[in-house]
């Protein structure tokens, strides 16, 4: 049981990181597409 918990404890962080990366990337590409549609710089 303890081994399983420790395994989850170590491997959960890359999963959360992947989720965060997805959220940030989705936001970035959405803004990029919007700025292209509106003919302006993203920043």
């Amino acid at each position, binding site marked *: 049981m303890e081994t399983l918990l420790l395994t989850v404890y*170590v491997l959960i962080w890359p999963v959360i990181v992947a989720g965060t990366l997805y959220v*940030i990337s989705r936001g970035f590409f959405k803004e990029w597409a919007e700025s292209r549609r509106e003919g302006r710089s993203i920043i």
Partner: protein
Amino acid sequence: MLGAHLAWLASGGLAMNERNGMTHENADFYQLSGWTVILLLVLFYGGTLLMSAFIGKKKENADGYMTAGNKLGFGISAASMTATWIWASSMYASATSGYTYGISGPIHYGLWGALMILFIYPFGRRIRAVAPKAHTLAEVMYVRHGRSSQLMLAGSNVVGSLISLTSNFIAGGALVALLSPFSFGQGVIAVAAGVLLYTLWSGFRASVLTDFAQVLAMLGAVVVIIPAVFFAAGGPGMFEAGAQNLTPEQSNFFSSEAFLNQGAPYIAAVLAYAIGNQTIAQRLFAVREDLIKKTFVTATVGYGATVIGVGMLGVMALYLGLAPAGGDLNNLIPQMASTYLHPILLGVFLIMIIGALSSTADSDLSALSSIMMADVYGQTVGKDKANAKTMLLVGRVTMIVATAAALYFASGQMSILDLLVFVGALWGALVFPVIASFYWEKVTNKAFTVSVVVALATFLPVRFGWLPMDGAIGIVFDVISVVGIGVVLGLMAFGFFGLKWAKIIAAAGAIIAAPFAIGNLHDYAVLSGSLVAYAVSTVVCYLMSARSTMNFDFDTIKQRIGDFDPDEAATSTADSDVAGHTAALK
């Protein structure tokens, strides 16, 4: 941040690796070939240079150079907050914490660092509401109080950013020396030149845009590297085979040793770094006002998961019974990567660290240039008389001079890292006066300045053990520290729940902590020093302000702080320039 990763640097950190002969331990590490490293660095810095060229303009806007026009979207600003907050040192220190304190170690490093971002967003919203067009926090303090408070914030940030820049260059040089045939000096110069090249022309705009690519590299690498090392090192079996390598404290997720030595000093430092540091303030002034909460919450999760995840390398090293090469804990992460990763993933690891240190280094350059542009040049000649072209020149020259200075410090000519503890203490002492200055109209310049100076003067003997703490003096400082606990908890609660709950939580926190803290806390000099700085600056600032007749009108800040360069073309509709650059790239 007094107790946090900066303090780790001050107490040794990466700077010591080279000086103590870290590169002599190279035999313990698998090395990438020279051409592979050159290719990786060219790809990384070439890519970021290309990105910054894409948004670069022939005629940059001075305000855009500092805050990107105050309307950054969520994706870029969340990426930028995350990338800036994560630097090479946070990864190394988290792994060190895991190796030293066991399974709870990375939590006591990464969680509090992450919460730091979360706790300031309510203050961030207030700061933006009061000063929507500001470039630096020091600039706001000048209007709110005057020159002395501005100088405290600006001065501490100049030193703080130079230290951070230096340590990032050192980290890059040390890593290149470990994992390639190149020397420390060659690595430092490659990193410094790479960062300066892509940041110099467009300043903060380049910094935040390239942060997105750096976040992709860093977070993407973490997603792959942690499981790769885990399974290569034996998977779940390592926890059974290596359980005897841990002490009972290291095996305990609720270790009091880990909390008192690692976690608690961080909690005390949570607000200090976030409030005092210009790299964070700059992003606060840049993001679109309605996106502040979303951005900060995302960055909290991103930073926390990344840094805690990398810290798991230290926990794994502990279970595996791995001894750090040369006895140096800073070698742990490269050693784990070098031992368990395929050479291709080792290249990914190199890019992860280079991405982490570059994103923070470019933020430091942008912070330094903004301070020189807005607080030195802008305030000297006045907003209406400032010449945008001269201002941009000041910013770019600052970046070049700062890079040269950091190279000088990195070469070991002068140990600037020793100043770190004072910067951290100054930021800790500034927290209450700065926050109060945005909410309470009675805070005066005299109260602000005197409270910070007195807090610093009280901090020094506690932090450096100049006084015998084993008698009544120790008890007195413990009582002051308990007040500091109340102040920290109260400030955190105030941002979210308002003054009434802040007072209740502050009082309850201090009362609950008192029986445990009085008589013991002075044994933990780092923690005690931070708490004393918080307590003294708060009490002095409160007592001096409560009696004042000042009734500051916060609208004054909006009226007096605005754009230096009203040429709007550069911040939002740079179509012609972008089109030109795009064509040039094609």
